[in-house]
Each structure stands twice: as C-alpha cells, then as structure tokens.
C-alpha cells in the first residue's frame, strides 16, 4: 500500500497537510506534515505534490534502525528511538523524509499512511492503493 498523488488535480489548499500534522503530532501545523505541495506561480501555474512512495530507502540507511514497517508493510518512524542523525533525509527520492529540530526537537518524521489526507482532499488528488510493481 502507498499514497498516490495526481498533481494536476491539486488546488494547493493544504488541507491534507493540516490533517497530516494532526495525525503525526496531534497539532495543527502544516509545517509538520509529511507531504509537500510545491506551487509554481505565476507561471506555469501548477502545483507539484510529493508523497511517500514507501520505497524504504530511509529505513535502509537508518543507523538506529528506528524506521520500521507495520503489519501493512508501511514504514514509520519509532519516534523515541530516533537519534536525529538525519541520514534518512537526503536519501529520500521524493524529499518527503523530514527532520527539523526547530520544529520537532526529538524525531525525524515521514508519512505513516494514516489516510487522513485522502479524507480531506476535496479534489481527489490523493488516494491510497497497492504499490505498483516496478
């Protein structure tokens, strides 16, 4: 299972990022979300959405082995075990592995596939489905 995004349907509203921060941290703060919306305005006038593809690169490089897979095979950060080494951040091909000690002092974070972003997206730009085989 993974999250998919169709950038052409995104309107840049950021409801997904609010829902995401609420799920991950119990806070209303899209700066703490685990997906990215990049607006490209005034030209060409499009949004680019970046989401976790569950590729697992982050888990491969984590020296603390704190990025685990749940029963669905979905990666998640065991927050109390994170050593804030930042090794996972640059290897993420989608730039959706996050660490920012000024925002979240104790852990890196990523999408845990809770699905709340999909629930609030009014334009159906996000959905969860089985991973397509490469």
């Amino acid at each position: 299972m993974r999250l998919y995004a169709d950038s052409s349907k995104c309107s840049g509203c950021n409801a997904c990022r609010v829902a995401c921060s609420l799920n991950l941290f119990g806070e209303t703060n899209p700066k703490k979300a685990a997906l990215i919306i990049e607006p490209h305005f005034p030209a060409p006038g499009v949004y680019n959405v970046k989401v976790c593809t569950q590729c697992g690169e982050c888990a491969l490089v984590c020296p603390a082995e704190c990025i685990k897979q749940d029963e669905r095979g979905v990666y998640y950060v065991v927050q109390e075990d994170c050593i804030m080494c930042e090794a996972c951040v640059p290897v993420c091909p989608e730039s959706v592995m996050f660490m920012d000690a000024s925002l979240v002092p104790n852990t890196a974070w990523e999408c845990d596939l809770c699905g709340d972003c999909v629930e609030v997206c009014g334009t159906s730009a996000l959905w969860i489905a089985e991973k397509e085989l490469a």
Partner: protein
Amino acid sequence: MNGYGGTILRVNLTTGKIIREPTTPELARDYIGGRGFGIYFLTKEVPIHTDPLGPENKLIISTGPLSGMLAPGGGKCDWTCKSPLTGGYADASMGGHFTAEMKYAGLDSIILEGRSSKPVYLFIDNEKVELLDASKLWGKGAIDTEVDLKKQYGEPFQIAAIGPGGENQVLFACINHDYGRQAGRGGVGAVMGSKNLKAIALHGTGSVTVADPDAYRKAGMALYKACKEADNLKDWTRYGTTIVVSWCDEVGALPTRNFTAGSFEGGKTLYGPVMREQIVITDKGCFGCPCPCGKYSNLKRYGTQVEGPEYETIGMLGSDVGLSDIQDVAQANLLCDDLGIDSISAGGCIAWAMEAYEKGVLSKDETDGLDLKFGNVDAVFATIRKIAAREGKLGTLLSEGTKRAALKIGKGTQDYAIHIKGMEQSAYAIHNATAMLISYMTCDVGAHHNRAWAITYDLQVGRDKVVPEKVARVIWLQHFRPMFDVLGGCRLQWVELGIDRDLYVPLLEAMTGTRRTWEDLERTGERIWNLTRLYWMREVDGFGRSWDQPSPRFYTEPPATGATAGQITKPEDVQKLLDMYYEQRGWDSDGHPKHETLEKLNLVEFAV
C-alpha cells in the same frame, strides 16, 4: 488562548515601534475575530473624522477561529479601515494562505498605524518583526513584488502587496496576495499605500492549540466529509463562481453596459463552461478549501497567466463594459490585479465613463483621446492603466470613483453613476429584484453583494414582491453570511455545497472551548452590523436614509432588452422596502438605531 494565535501585533509606521499585545478573552468573547475585531479596533482607536488617507487611519488585518485550522475554507482574513472611497466603514475579505500563516505566527490581528516617511515593507518571521526598505519594490506591480519577495525569502513566506494603484492612492486600490487573491473593496490598498507600506512578507511555524483536540479533529473531519459528499461539489469546483454567469444572463442579473440591462447579447461566450474549456489550467484553492472556486487561466493571446476571472470580474469588466471575449476580460482582470485596483470598481468606473462618452457628455479630450465606446477592449486596457497611474484627465477623474467623478462632471451623469454610499455596485443588475435591491442599499460597506446574496430569493418569492419576509431574509443573511468574515473562514461551503451549518458548532466549541450556537453567532452578527452603522453615523455628517438610496437607474429606467426588459422597481417601493428594513432592525425612519435597540445589543457605549 485556544483556537487563537494569542497576539495582537501593533506596527507603528511613523515611529517604527512594534508592540505585541495579548488577545484578551473579552475581545474574543464579544467580537470573536475577523471583522468583529476590525470594527472594534476601528471604533475604539481611530479618532472621529480621521482623514482615511492620513496617518491616523489604521489598517487592521484579522484572522478568526477557523483560520488555518482543520476547517473547510479557513483561509480568509479581514482587512478593516476607514474607507477613502466612501468615507465610512470598510472591510475586505481576502482568501489565499495569508490568514493561516498569520495564525501560525501567533497573530490574531496586525494593526498598521501611522505613516512611514519612506517606502517600507513589513517582514514577519514568527517573533521577528521588522520594517525594511522597499525602495526597490516601489513602482512594481503586485505580482512582480510577490515574485521578488518569494525569491528573497522562499516559497513558504506569504506575501500581501499593493501595486502602483495603491502607491498612487487610487481610492479603490486593492491588496493582492497569492497571485490572484485580493482584499478588494473600499480602497484598503490606498490606505496601505498612504502608509508607504508596499508589502507584508509573513512566515509562521507555530502550532495552534485547541481546547479539545479529539473533538476538534472529529468535528473538522465531519465538515470535510459533508463537503465531499455534497451533490454540487463536482460542478461547483469545475466552474467556481463562473457557474452563475449563464444563470444571471438568463434571469437578467448580468450587468450589461453600465447596468442598462441585465442580459448581454455577447454573454454566452463568457459562460463558465466556455471559460473552463478555453483558458482554465488549474483549480486554485484558498487554505483548507475542499471546493476551490479559484480558476487559474492561461491566456494564449496575451502570453499571460491570471487567477480568474471570477463572476464579479466577468460581470464588471465583461458585459458591463461590453466585452464578450473571455481572454480579453481575463487580461483586464490581470491588469487590475497587477496594478492593484479593484476590478469591480474599475469596471463600474469605466462603464460609467463609456456611457457618458457615448452620450457625448465626456469629450475625446476628457478621455485623453480614447474612443471610449462599449466593447472597445483597447480602451478598457488603457483606462485601467490610466486609473492606476492617475494619469491624464481620464485617469485622474476615474481614480476617485464614480461618485466623485459624476459630481465633478455633472450634466446628469450622477443618474447613471451606479454606486451606493460611494462604492461602485458589484455585478448584479437589480431591475425588479427587490430583495437584492434592499441588500445592496443597506450593505455596510456600500453596494456590495457578499453580505446578503438575495437574488435567488427574489426569483423564489416573486421578484417585484415588497413583503416583510424578503426584508427579514436579507437581515438574516446580513447577520449570518458575514459571520464567516468574523470567523476567519469562507461562506461558500455553506452557500454552494449546502452543508449543514450546525456542523460548525462543535468545531468552534472544540477549538475555543466556548459553545456558541448559530443563534448566539447571529446575535453577535447583529451587534457587529449595528456597530458598523454607528461608525457610519459617527464619521459622516447627516448620514442616514439618503445614503441608503440606489441608483435611480433601477427605479426609473426599465431595460430595453433582455430578461428584465420593461421591468423596474416602483420608486415608492424602494422607500417602502427601507421603511420595512428600518422597522425590523429597530432603527428610526432615518436609519439610525433606536436607543432601545442599542440597549438590547449592549451597544449603548457606542451611541452617536
């Protein structure tokens, strides 16, 4: 404070002094936020009879409890000041992402005071607040200004900026944000320009605390669910406000050639589906909106991109000036946005000048050589540029709005200056539509539609009916709809998707810890409505019934063509509507709130 940023930021541009004050529980209790905070600060702090473009006027930007939260449409902030266009109360609601960013920076209101001696912009990054030199930005368009500041500070910064129109203090200058969202009406941009404030660059990374996190999440998700399950979601999102162009054309509400008619022979090429097919490339939403009305367009003919046009601009810079090509209208929209003037008032001014020109009242010398006929697209573009620059005879004349322009020109032009209280009427023709007529007449910023969009009600109950129920409906809307401007959110989820408004009640309670039913909220709405009325009475000598009058066009000149051909409201019915309205509001026959009304609303301390 739960549900709030917690801070009022006061920026004095004369002294450079920046003060942070706590948002008090009493302020939140009595005025909630948004335009409630705006009218409170305006009434309390701006001296009586202040020059709107003088340093003593204040520009108050306010969020509300819904802003930046898990709430559909929590992306609106309110800009309040004394209006240079009308001389009375002004507030303008702006969508986009600015209000959410304010909240994350911990700000409920930003109060801009005084006047800088040189061009500056306000930089806010959480706790860090500075006034910085804007000499390199001065003279730039609002869009270039946003590009420059985003380049300098990064995409996460939210920018609000004026264009040359605001710098030149055009009386209906607007404030631009997010490449296409505006605080549009009443000249808020002129007030910002009068303070020598070019822009605000804003960034916040804080979280907003709520009283009951679990209930908050549940209530927020329930609202999104309701929006997503609404039957109208797909159509509304596809067309946004342009969904009503065809309807307005068919029922005679589409302003045509300076409101001489309500149906436009070139209207079909301006309809929503035509626009969607021809120019729209992206849906563009305000913060948290599941049903984005913003349509971002690519104009091949001009090699430009613009957000819009939305319905009002199609009406005022399309049919009302005789333009029937959607790309031309969209380009006119872009010019207004970038130059920083309100497209509704601009359209109204140009349409008035076109009528005067075609009637031979304005000479070619007075139009600076422009052949200002309805439908002349080049003349429309040229006039927009002249207005923003206050250039030439025409630009100077129109930059003050239709009321002043008609007063200056005379020769009967006042009869077709389509304004109320000095504000150009927005894009609903109201020949024989008495609910919308009384809505416009009594709107607290001038002839604007957003307080009470009652025109569908006219069609439901009979458009010529002059009955108390119509007036009651308008009054209810005037309390209910602007409540979203108080709450820092958008009304369109309720208006267009028809979601149950009671879904907001548990959300607001979970966020703020205070339970308010819609009855409670409407009571606050009524209180604010009366307060804005008192503000007008305080500022304008002789303010009263004579200021609530519509253009005589709607009761003396039946349209020759279109759906409302031959139809007007009887002149005596106009006054009958006002009588009913004043009576239902508890105001006297001159439109002044009676003492007992002020007592009932706990407003005696504000009595004029």
